[in-house]
């Protein structure tokens, strides 16, 4: 019994955290509720909370007007594809930086991060022209490559900080035991590196899913993901809150659910070396 915690105190903390948690979550909850209202109810004065005629008409409208399955598929392919491609390129790099650091390692790492500062719109025309030259405008492969490049610095950085926390002593102990490089990697390091890789993957899926500049400007139909799908429901004529809410829920629900289910894995590696 190191610290005596009274139940009263615990209840107080519970109430406070739940209150703040709900406050932060509220915009999403409100969007969720609005998506089941009729357009008129959505702007009712005073606002209605739970007691209204729940309707799914907004969702059917949205489904009817746009190709949601295609946008969803594109989002999934682009997010997963760019993340996996990034991981394949980044793991060896981060590994080498973490375990065989040279004089330049830190500089290389910082330079990589600085490439993320490139303002997207500044290089828009060059990129469109390049993509046009290769005939890959509006293709998934283009989006996969571009989003991979945008997020690669973050992937390398995250993996590097994570790998660095793996104690080198273990490696040496394994070597003493006569393990060769292959089994060293397979049996000693991989299990220790997996949580870091997992949370890197998760974070980058989220970043790629939500990227809304390139995905809107470089796609038209066949590679257009959910970010572009949303653009057809923002600010139309007349009342649109309910339909916008439905479209918004459809765009964020997959990633929200994935995030919730994997939040433990996400959190474990999301330290960027912030914790000693």
């Amino acid at each position, binding site marked *: 019994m190191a610290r005596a915690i009274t139940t009263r105190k615990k*209840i107080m903390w519970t109430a406070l955290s739940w209150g*703040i948690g709900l406050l932060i979550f509220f915009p999403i909850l409100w969007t969720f509720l609005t998506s089941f209202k009729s357009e008129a109810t959505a702007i009712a004065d005073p606002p209605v909370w739970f007691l209204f005629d729940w309707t799914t008409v907004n969702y059917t409208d949205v489904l009817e007007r746009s190709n949601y399955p295609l946008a969803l598929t594109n989002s999934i392919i682009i997010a997963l594809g760019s993340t996996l491609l990034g991981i394949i*390129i980044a793991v060896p790099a981060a590994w080498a930086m973490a375990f065989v*650091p040279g004089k330049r390692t830190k500089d290389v790492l910082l330079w990589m991060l*600085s490439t993320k500062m490139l303002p997207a719109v500044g290089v828009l025309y060059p990129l469109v022209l390049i993509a046009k030259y290769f005939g890959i405008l509006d293709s998934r492969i283009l989006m996969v490559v571009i989003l991979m490049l945008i997020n690669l610095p973050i992937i390398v950085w995250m993996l590097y900080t994570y790998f660095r926390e793996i104690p080198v002593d273990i490696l040496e102990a394994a070597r003493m035991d006569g393990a060769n490089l292959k089994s060293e990697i397979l049996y000693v390091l991989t299990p220790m590196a997996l949580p870091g890789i997992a949370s890197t993957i998760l974070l980058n899926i989220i970043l790629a899913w*939500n990227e809304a500049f390139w995905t809107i400007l470089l796609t038209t139909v066949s590679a257009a993901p959910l970010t572009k799908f949303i653009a057809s429901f923002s600010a139309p004529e007349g009342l649109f809150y309910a339909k916008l809410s439905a479209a918004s829920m459809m765009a964020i629900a997959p990633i929200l659910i994935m995030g919730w289910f994997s939040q433990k894995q996400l959190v474990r590696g999301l330290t960027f070396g912030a914790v000693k």
Partner: protein
Amino acid sequence: MATEHSKAAARIMIAPAVFVLLVWMLVPLCMTLYFSFADYRPLRATFEPWIGFDNYVSFFTSSSFISSVVTTLQMVGGILCITIVGGVLLALLLDQPMFGQGIVRILVIAPFFVMPTVSALVWKNMFFNVDNGLFSYLYAALGLQPYDFLSQAPLLSIIVIVAWQWLPFATLILLTAVQSLSSEQLEAAEMDGAPGLSRFWYIILPHLSRAITVVILIQTIFLLSIFAEIFVTTNGAFGTRTLTYLVYQRVLESQNIGLGSAGGIIAVILANIVALFLMRIVGKNLDN
């Protein structure tokens, strides 16, 4: 321990990442550099490959340049303040004993998963809107005049939207750091009779400093390129035009690619100065 052999291997392992990023940096950047010295205005069907530094001069001397830099700094600074102060408080709160901690954490991290466009649209229409937004009902319920956030406090409104999205990220990183603080240290302090505030000031905060620098670094990288939130809410009106947005206006609205490219190059240089400055601090902090 690192032999020549393993060093060579390491270089090969790093090579692909360095190579693709170099290509990514150099090819579009070189083209942008090339355009920035050209008079390239597709709508006028004008393309003159060399006009010297004219674009740079007009971009620098334009009345909107300085104000856009100031706006960028205010916006990034404001968001960093909110997310870090809020993140530290939230992290401390989530570390307290409570019922249903897992669920609270789920609620708190949710905004991080929301697309910038979606969150900007939701905030703009369903909260900030004077006629049908929730804040207006709240104001009316309190007997106050409705307040038009997006035109009266435009910068703050955008800061709130972006801070809402990034607060979970800061909280998560800081929470991990808070949890790594050994309870013995804290208890020792408690035994010594140190009051809550000084315990926070002398033990917790120094312990978090490393996490805070990391949050600042990562967020700054993302925040310097904020676009969707401004595009959706104010379209750059009411003094919310950041440097990124100014470049956007030059390229896509004015269709002056040369001028926009010059702006892009200037933005890259400025961003890298900020980055260099930040990384010096962070690098020092991460070295040990």
